[in-house]
């Protein structure tokens, strides 16, 4: 008998091996999303990363939630609420008949327990509860929050996973506690990473770090059942790899595409490219302290810098869909003004006049610090080079100093950077977040912009933070943005677009900046 050629045999074996992969049956209805996640834990009281909510929102209910975009605040597991006349007491009535995935009924006691645990554990998101003086559960269907001061953003804050309603009985059985000694006594974090105790449409079936999270349908869910039986969130860091997997049909959603990947797949049959407004902004910090900023600290120089920048060019670098907000208040937030016309925002002639007025017609040299970070697919050092070229037009010579973000954060926090390029993602989807940029507030102080330097603006910020009347609040925010557009230690450069793609037969794969995708609403 003729012996088979070993090379032929090996080739056949290899082909069989390669082709044979992927033949096992998948679950009946499974949604597969590829993303580059940053989540470290699924303990709702501790999770704070941008993608954690993508997993936690379909698993845990909150009193308030977003149905679609972040400008549509709706009730979650609460069905109604009232606010006292002094704006300090919020009373919520819970929906009746809501059960956790365990079958335990969801009561006000669980809400109280969950909030107290979040406060006592002191995770990164605990600051959202700073203004809560007490939380009470006078009856199983009523929760009462008493605030220490008025907070116009309180209802929005309640959408965060910090306020996720946890099944206290199941959690306690797994060594969770809401007591004051929670930082040392609570041992449930690892349990939460691979399990869940929520009332949402899904439960966490398994979590393999850096590999995948699998969500499975919650049979006790009180609301409309989701279309998919399971959702697999696959960790695929490289956008090129995500794109290939989408093109091959191995995944349904590729969530982290850059502008270049989008171009490759635009118009291809069977794939829909989505462009949404991210809430991440990139901005220039200009130090107001002459000891640190030197000539950059001059207000006219700062105005000149804002007028010298080529916003159209920067938007091109950031990719299609990027806009330039009026001030560091993202388009899409309550009260945000429309974005700038990028062409009209640049005025070199006026910029040069201002430099002359400031006494720097011949220009000056300064260091320009930037971290080697990529923001929504855009490389910050590349943007820095663009800015460097723009500033040359008004005779400002910048020496770009790049460093890893872990190194750059130190001088940034201490207000030691003359001119630097940074980015900001909101902690929660409310314009109160952005008040941090005002003089005397945390980000303002990183530019050494004190309240004393701009007292009117500082006072306006304090007023807006506690203004619960929507009309009055909108007016305050408008005034703040106009003031900052005229005079500010910051130049808001970009609000980024988020690019992702999905198989065209999917419905409901709309972007939401808090939840990224509302997984329970996606169907075919």
């Amino acid at each position, binding site marked *: 008998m003729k012996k088979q050629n070993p090379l032929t045999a090996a080739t056949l074996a290899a082909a069989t091996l390669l082709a044979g992969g992927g033949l096992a049956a998948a679950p009946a209805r499974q949604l597969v999303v590829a993303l580059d996640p940053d989540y470290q834990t699924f303990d709702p009281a501790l999770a704070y990363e941008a993608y954690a909510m993508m997993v936690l929102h379909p698993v845990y209910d909150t009193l308030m939630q977003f149905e679609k975009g972040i400008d549509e605040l709706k009730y979650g597991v609460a069905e109604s609420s009232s606010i006292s006349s002094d704006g300090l007491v919020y009373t919520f009535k819970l929906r009746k008949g809501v059960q956790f995935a365990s079958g335990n009924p969801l009561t006000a006691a669980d809400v109280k327990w969950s909030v107290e645990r979040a406060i006592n554990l002191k995770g990164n998101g605990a600051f959202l509860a700073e203004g809560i003086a007490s939380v009470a559960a006078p009856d199983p269907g009523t929760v009462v929050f008493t605030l220490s001061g008025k907070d116009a953003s309180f209802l929005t804050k309640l959408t965060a996973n910090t306020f996720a309603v946890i099944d206290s009985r199941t959690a306690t059985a797994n060594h969770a506690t809401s007591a004051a000694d929670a930082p040392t006594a609570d041992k449930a974090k690892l349990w939460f990473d691979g399990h869940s105790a929520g009332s949402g449409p899904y439960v966490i079936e398994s979590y393999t770090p850096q590999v995948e999270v699998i969500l499975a349908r919650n049979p006790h869910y009180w609301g409309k059942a989701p279309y998919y039986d399971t959702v697999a969130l696959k960790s695929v860091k490289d956008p090129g790899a995500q794109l290939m997997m989408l093109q091959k049909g191995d995944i349904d959603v590729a969530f982290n595409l850059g502008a270049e990947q989008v171009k490759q797949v635009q118009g291809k049959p069977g794939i829909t490219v989505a462009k949404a407004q991210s809430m991440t902004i990139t901005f220039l910090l200009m130090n107001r302290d002459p000891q640190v900023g030197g000539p950059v600290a001059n207000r006219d120089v700062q105005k000149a810098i804002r007028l010298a920048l080529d916003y159209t060019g920067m938007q091109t670098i950031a990719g299609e869909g990027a806009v330039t907000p009026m001030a560091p208040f993202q388009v899409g937030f309550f009260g945000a003004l429309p974005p700038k016309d990028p062409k009209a925002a640049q005025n070199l002639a006026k910029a040069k006049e201002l430099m002359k007025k400031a006494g720097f017609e011949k220009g000056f040299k300064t260091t320009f610090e930037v971290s080697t970070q990529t923001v929504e697919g855009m490389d910050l050092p590349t943007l820095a080079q663009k800015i460097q070229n723009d500033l040359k037009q008004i005779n400002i010579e910048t020496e770009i100093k790049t460093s890893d973000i872990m190194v750059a954060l130190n001088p940034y*926090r201490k207000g030691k950077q003359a001119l630097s390029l940074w980015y900001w993602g909101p902690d929660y989807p409310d314009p109160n977040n952005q008040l*941090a940029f005002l003089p005397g507030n945390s980000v303002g102080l990183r530019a050494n912009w004190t309240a004393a330097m701009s007292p009117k603006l500082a006072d306006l910020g304090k007023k807006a933070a506690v203004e619960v009347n929507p009309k009055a609040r909108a007016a305050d925010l408008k005034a703040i943005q106009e003031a900052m557009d005229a005079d500010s230690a910051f130049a808001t450069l970009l609000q980024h677009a988020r690019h992702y793609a999905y198989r065209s037969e999917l419905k409901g794969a709309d972007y939401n900046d808090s939840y990224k995708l509302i997984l329970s609403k996606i169907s075919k």
Partner: protein
Amino acid sequence: MGLVKFILRRVLFLGFLIIGVSLIVFVISHTVPSDPVLANLSQRNMDNVEMVAAYKAKWGLDKPLYAQYAIYLGALAKGDLGISIRTQRPVATDLAQYFPATVELAVFAIILAVVFGMAFGILSAIKRNTATDRLIRGASVLGASVPSFWLALMVLLLFYVMLGIAPGPGRLGARFPAPHGATGLFVVDALLAGDFPTARDALAHLVLPGLVLGAFTMGLITRTTRSSLLEILSMDFIRTARAKGLAEAKVITRHALGNALIPVVTVIGLGFGNLLGGMVLVETIFAWPGIGRYAYQAARNLDFPAIIGVSILIAINYVLINLFVDILYGVLDPRVRYE
């Protein structure tokens, strides 16, 4: 007896090595101009003095460096690698999770590298100065010099996207759930569970990243095998074997190859040790959750326990592999004595 003492000495040396590695890595990671608090707290919480103080107290970062190291060493002596600041899980748990992924890929890659590297090296030596030899030498240089991340993208584009004959990134197909077994080696765990489709899928997913990672070592093995074999083939005892009328195949396999293997085994050992340290770029492109990515993220976040834990693991790998290689020398060359 000599071999046993040799092994015991190496094991003892391992203890000192671990202390040395932990000290060096500890000092280096604490001298970078950054602050682990900034690396792990949110920007908002960085401004909160109480939060920063609580965080430092929790992780012992408020203590002097020598005290921090002493605490770490005390725990290490009990086998405790500490808690990762980033993942907040025991470092040992993290390593137990990510290292098997790297082991599985490294073993596959080294098998490919050894089988093909030696085969090509032998062929190249036999066909010295022919077109075959030149082709193999050119390919081995290419394999050793082409950037691995580029090669990874190219093989994915060619075999996965264009030809559709290989699976995509990841340890398993996107619609396969990960097997939860004892070893963390997906192929082994799936086989032990009797889940043959998953085992086959996991094995298929090893091919492309294994080829990419093995390319560099394959190139080295090819060239080392060739040069070592050529040197042996020029020796008198080979001429004697041929003069006795032995077939060339037997001359090579029975007389030449064994003697040519010692430098090759050294290269294999070093290559395997390198692979076990993880390759962050290839792991990123192939979405492979290995030790390379874990180490990279630990470094980015100044996660001291994780950084030291990974360093110790890699050091242990190298020592054990070198020990194995040294023992293999004795097998290959009976003249070697362990003293």
